């Protein structure tokens, strides 16, 4: 029925990656280069970019215009908000989040990075490590991104010099020994000229490692999800109330961890009731098991009261349940975090409120130590904070599970999302 190309496409996996690094280090240009060299740019897009570059009067075609889509971004030549781009090679399908380097827009960088399996952190070979390099590397580590690739960019501007690359790599190694990232790589590139992006550079024969594209296509990602601790946050209760399905009560959600099978013993939190899984449905199709990150509907053998915000978990492996929650917070709002202030919390499908009990410390981003002096958490700061919630949350540590270990805070007067929290 299908030829090989079609068939291959139906069997690809998905890698989500993000770019990071300081302003003008070349993130958007790199994405443009990746798309261009893998021939993913359509004629009408390229024409539009050529026309826009010409209008700006610079000789070269500015590949960053492929992702900087907002008027204000094009006018200022910077990225303000995340742009999502998509491409596929015969091996993999990619979702790219191109994020801004400017400190003012750190919240948008965190948005793009929160779902990534891999982060490309760019460093300008002329400038080396900057404060934003540190901030973004630390955020990538906090967000539990398992793979980080440091691309030392603009090698064309340092005569493709090996010593420059080695020195920056050494500095990055010293710095990142304090981070918790499983897999770190270093590549010398020129996003503008294309060296070591998709095609191997002839101008850096001293570099023996893989190109960026090779890494993106081959990095092993299957082990990045938690298939051990069974967690199923209930999003929605499905009640058809039709003749045919008169008494049907199904619990819809997305598996956040582990593998659930028909007949499994489960606990429901917060009630603590026990039951067994009677059925699992994925759409019309009944399935024997469901694993992260599948969206399914479960029914249980017993009539128990379950609603949105509850969580169904494996009977012999419970998450932590507590109203006292210790988090690393990234703060996004102009108004600083208010100690004793009250915020709305969203954790999985559960909505609650909380009060900020205490700031344990604020991080000094460049040293990765606790900051001295003023502990006020301001916009773009990161700190360790103690929350007290109105109802218990059922969670795992973020390092163990990115879904059940994450939460956001919402300002109740403006409804803005003011912080991302990773439970420690």
């Amino acid at each position, binding site marked *: *029925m*299908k030829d090989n*190309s*079609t068939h291959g496409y*139906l*069997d690809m*996996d*998905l890698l989500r990656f993000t770019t990071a690094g300081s302003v003008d280090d070349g993130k958007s240009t790199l994405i443009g280069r990746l798309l261009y060299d893998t021939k993913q740019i*359509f*004629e*009408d897009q390229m024409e539009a970019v050529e026309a*826009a570059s010409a209008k700006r009067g610079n000789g070269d075609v500015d590949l960053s215009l*492929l*992702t900087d*889509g*907002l*008027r*204000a971004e*094009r006018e200022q030549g910077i990225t303000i*908000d*995340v*742009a*999502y*781009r*998509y491409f*596929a090679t015969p091996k993999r399908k990619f*979702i790219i989040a191109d994020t801004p380097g400017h400190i003012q827009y750190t919240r948008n960088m*965190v*948005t793009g990075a*929160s*779902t990534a399996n891999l982060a490309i952190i760019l460093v300008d070979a002329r400038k080396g490590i900057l404060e934003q390099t540190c901030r973004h590397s630390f955020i990538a580590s906090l967000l539990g991104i398992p793979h980080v690739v440091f691309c030392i960019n603009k090698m064309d501007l340092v005569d493709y010099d090996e010593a420059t690359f080695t020195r920056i790599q050494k500095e990055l190694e010293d710095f990142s020994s304090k981070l918790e990232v499983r897999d770190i790589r270093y590549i010398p590139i020129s996003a503008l000229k294309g060296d070591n992006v998709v095609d191997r550079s002839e101008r850096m024969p001293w570099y023996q490692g893989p190109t960026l594209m090779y890494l993106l296509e081959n990095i092993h990602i*299957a082990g990045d*999800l938690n298939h051990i601790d069974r967690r199923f946050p209930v999003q*929605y209760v*499905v009640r*058809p109330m*039709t003749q*045919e*399905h008169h008494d*049907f009560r*199904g619990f819809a*959600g*997305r598996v956040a961890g582990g593998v659930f099978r028909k007949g499994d013993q489960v606990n429901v939190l917060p009630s603590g009731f026990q039951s067994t899984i009677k059925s699992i449905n*994925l*759409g*019309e199709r009944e399935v024997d098991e469901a*694993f992260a*990150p*599948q*969206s399914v509907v479960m029914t249980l053998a017993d009539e128990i009261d379950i609603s949105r915000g509850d969580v169904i978990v494996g009977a012999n492996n419970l998450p932590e349940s507590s109203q006292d929650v210790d988090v690393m917070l990234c703060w*996004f709002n102009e108004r600083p975090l208010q100690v004793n202030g009250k915020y*709305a919390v*969203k*954790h999985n499908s559960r909505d609650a409120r909380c009060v900020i009990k205490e700031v344990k410390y604020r991080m000094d981003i460049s040293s990765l130590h606790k900051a001295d002096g003023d502990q006020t958490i301001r916009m773009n700061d990161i700190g360790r904070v103690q929350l007290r919630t109105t109802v218990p949350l059922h969670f795992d540590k973020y390092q163990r599970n*990115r879904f059940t270990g994450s*939460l*956001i805070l*919402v300002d109740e007067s403006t*409804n803005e*999302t003011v912080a991302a929290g990773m439970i420690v």
Partner: protein
Amino acid sequence: MHSYRLTHLKELESESMHILREVAAQFERPMLLFSGGKDSIVCFHLARKAFFPAKVPFPLLHVDTGHNFEETMTFRDELVKEHGAQLFVGSVQESIDSGRVQEETGYYASRNKLQTVTLLDSLEKHKVDCAIGGGRRDEEKARAKERVFSHRDEFGQWDPKNQRPELWNIYNGKKRPGEHFRAFPISNWTEMDVWQYIMLENIPIPSIYFSHEREVFKRDGVIYANSPVMRLKPEEKPYQMRVRFRTIGDMSCTGAVDSPASTLEEIIDEVASSRVTERGSRMDDKRSEAAMEDRKKEGYF
């Protein structure tokens, strides 16, 4: 050993189902914007999967420019009947008749821009607090910037420079009275993903996506269907041709492609080798460099 791995289409499907359920749970009165095009059809299919065996818990809303392909309308009505869905129609013609908007004139007249007023009026009339759309980020550079849960102020406006952070799969749908949200469950899908999924799941789509004989004419290099809504210039002569449509929008701004593709497999091969984006044949985006951003700020889909 068993490997717990999802293909990218299954992962996208799962993400979309999760988003649709979040919409149903967080809003009082969501509606699915339904144009009869492939993206809204896929959204409806995903919604059926997300809530099975219950019915899709929100109605469909069609913003009708009055300049539709007949095949799309027939398809829409059959789908509504088959699945017992509830359909509301917001009519651009009514907006014109009641003086809410003024019809454009001239050869390039299109009702595309007028839709925004009809859309916002319909949302207000039906007290819709979240309009679910089939927009995809790969369609256009301004769309590439939009959140899955996208906030609109009381005037229906989008503020692209000040969007809420959107982390992990936690969606913040909190808002004040009078404001609303747009939600885009298939944000992360590409045109190719949509076609592959239609094939994988065997989803019916309107016949005009497949190659067929039709009376057309050419303008500025774009092939348009000849119809009473188009005003031809004296030198434009209609002729018969085998074409199909890559997107289905308002007749006055949707170009056809010269194509023999009459099966999904053939369409997919064609999409794979195509050198222009699907919106490349839409006049509405060509009006200026930031045409889409400007329309979206005003409240367009």
